[in-house]
């Protein structure tokens, strides 16, 4: 016995992970084109969140790499014998 997921009233902009999980759990034969549109909308929104998180991570890593080690901050080339 299969049940149709109850996400048909959810606007595309508000599709939640629970909605998508319900769609994945459903018998694919019962899914409507609107259900598949919800999956697409959800994963497109997910991609924006993922890319934003990746960018934030990359920026933090760049900043960390650019930060001068305090132990070396006061050193001149002369101090290093160069």
């Amino acid at each position, binding site marked *: *016995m*299969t049940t149709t997921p109850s996400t048909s009233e959810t606007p595309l902009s508000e599709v939640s992970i629970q909605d*998508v999980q319900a769609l*994945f*759990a459903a*018998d*694919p*034969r019962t*899914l409507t*084109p609107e259900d*598949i*549109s919800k*999956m*697409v909308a959800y*994963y*497109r929104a*997910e*991609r924006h969140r*993922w890319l934003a998180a*990746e960018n934030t991570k990359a920026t933090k890593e760049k900043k960390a790499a650019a930060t001068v080690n305090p132990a070396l901050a006061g050193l001149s080339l002369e101090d290093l014998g160069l």
Partner: protein
Amino acid sequence: MIVEPSPFRGTFQFAWDNTSLELLKTCPRKYQLTIIEGWRSKTPSAALDFGRLFHAGLELVDLAMAKGDPLDEALHHAIDYLLRETVSYDEDGVHTPWVSGDKYRTREILIRSVIWYFEQYSTDPLPTHILPDGNPALELSFSFKIHEDEQLGQILWCGHIDKLVDFGEHVMVLERKHTSSSSFPFKYFEKYLTNSQVSGYTYAGKVLLQTEVHGAIVDAAQVLIGGTRFQRSQFIRTPAQLDEWANDTLSWIKTAKGYSDTSNWPMNTESCMNYGGCVFLGICSKDPSVRAQFLRTHFEPRPWNPLKVRKAGVYE
């Protein structure tokens, strides 16, 4: 029932594809068991299943868009196919979704990766090459003579190019791969520098089109739990490199002829532990007298035939 022509004369393969060639290079015994005897593991491979489905999803979108469907409609078609392909039904009609046993290769990650692929490349699409007859260069099954002599007879090179694309002024083969490797992207792509599929398909593209095909573009997807990363790289093959590939391939085929003539397919024990271990490790490690019994228990006959023409929308 359609009977496929055999790619063998006795135990000598005359119709070769990249899968056969790579297996021979990896281990002649693995080649014998897989290609000549046609054994496949009964245990599903998450990587192979996921790869086949990912590939099918992308190809279905390409085909629908080539027929004029807008992206969203094409995606619907592909997602519907993938969802249906990844469930099984019991005798009462109750469905069970596919569980691969691999945290990186789930139904959700499959669907997400197909949707994200077309998001990733929406602003940087590679136009499908249009063939002289006006058809898009999609799903090109090929089989043509690459050599003939008294010792080997006629040798065919076979395969299936998913897509030829226009890349600037060049025509390139498009290959799409997925990986869960942490070496992505830099180390991951190094293997394509000398990869025989890139060379062999470039060679085939030139023969099929009767024009310069410069190499392959590899779109690779790194599947992770939280997201899918994509990277596109191009791999050029010069005419001299393609000649070298053809010569090397012929050398390997002559080696196979020698193994076939002596009915001796030696193990390459240096390959046993590559990529997490050979699927036949549990067979080759047994005494030869009991191997056939173990093969019948853990493997099933599913012959590989490079001469089989793949039909649109059928993904095996």
